[in-house]
């Protein structure tokens, strides 16, 4: 099976090397210097004990939401505690306003609703007006998980892992009928009928798919939730070091 494409260097154009190019891509193994090898003595992925909770300082057993609750780590509002030193009275309100007006969604479009989500993010229905333009690819940088599209059992595990990797405060929005209740796939053998079976949802946006205006309405409701300190995240009590009365 001879393919004509695999020997061409795409960056160089149609095969002829370009002397003006700053980046020259090595085409044979001898062009690369011998890499520095640093032996990894800390742990090895082949070692089955490497991923055990508690090994090498990895967090003990935080693998489900239930255990996260019991561990109590998720209830500590670090930002609020730091801000209290500056503006003790209005810290809550200012923090919540800041959070509400810069909710960064995670790029988690699964199916058709993702197209409507992209349509909301582009020029005609610009969601950047509410600060939500950067759809972050990494869960570490995202605030809100907009689940747009049908969740299947195969995808549920990666999605819940994404949710767990998102740092607090975080909110979850169920966009579309498939995430609210299973939608038109209610009787299917391989979908999850409603993501609230696996994730704590704050806002449900029905529709198949919901119009961009519908998604914007849902996000504005979410902003209201954030400011009013309602929703599933805010139900957690604040950290034990916050004095009573504040």
């Amino acid at each position: 099976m001879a393919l004509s494409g695999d020997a061409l260097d795409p960056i160089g154009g149609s095969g002829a090397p370009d002397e003006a190019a700053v980046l020259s891509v090595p085409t044979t193994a001898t062009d690369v210097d011998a890499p520095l090898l640093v032996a990894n003595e800390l742990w090895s992925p082949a070692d089955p004990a490497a991923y055990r909770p508690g090994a090498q300082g990895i967090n003990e057993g935080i693998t489900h939401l239930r255990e996260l609750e019991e561990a109590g780590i998720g209830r500590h509002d670090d930002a609020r505690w730091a801000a209290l030193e500056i503006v003790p009275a209005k810290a809550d309100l200012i923090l919540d306003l800041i959070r509400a007006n810069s909710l960064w969604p995670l790029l988690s479009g699964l199916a058709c609703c993702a197209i409507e989500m992209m349509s909301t993010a582009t020029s005609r229905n610009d969601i950047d007006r509410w600060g939500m333009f950067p759809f972050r690819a990494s869960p570490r940088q995202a605030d809100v998980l907009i689940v747009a599209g049908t969740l299947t059992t195969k995808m549920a595990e990666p999605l819940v892992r994404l949710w767990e990797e998102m740092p607090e405060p975080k909110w979850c929005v169920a966009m579309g009928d498939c995430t609210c209740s299973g939608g038109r796939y209610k009787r299917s053998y391989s979908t999850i009928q409603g993501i609230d079976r696996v994730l704590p949802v704050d806002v449900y946006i029905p529709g198949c798919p919901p119009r961009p205006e519908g998604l914007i309405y849902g996000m504005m409701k979410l902003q209201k939730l954030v400011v009013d300190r309602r929703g599933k995240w805010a139900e957690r009590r604040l950290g034990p070091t916050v004095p009573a009365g504040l």
Partner: protein
Amino acid sequence: MDRALRARLERRFGERLAGGVRQRHDETEIRVTAADVADTLRALHDEPELDFRMLADLAGVDTGTHMQVVYHLWSATTGDWLRVVADGLDREAPRAPSVTFLWKGAEWMEREAYDMFGIVFEGNRDLRRIYLPDEFRSFPLRKDFHLPDDASRSPGLGVRPMEETLSPRDATPATNLRRSAGS
């Protein structure tokens, strides 16, 4: 409905066709056994007067009594779609020859037929599940796999507890209050 195509097929494959060549609208159908289908497809692919070089579709079918693999082919020599049905696969242990030696693109289509029906394609280098997780034990498109909500044929038999109290017919003030207090 291409009569010339019918004549060519009968001349070339006459003895191995079960039931002759059937035609309707713009489709021509021939049925062969699973043992013959590899040779038949190779002949259809290679011979210049047949020239069925394009594979349009590869599907598995569970008729309830046995299984079939259905190939749809296209050729520039005729205006009909050709359907080749590899018939008579055993429902409990379906095996069929793989056509990846002719069309490498059939590899995933055969994987899908395996995933959905359990049909084992001999000669496919990569016969594993493609849609469902690897731990899934059933083959969903078989006729003995019932959707859980399929009221007429499932053990649940019409009981759909999630939707019971949401129908306006069943809603009373008591049920509505209970739903809003509980959820």
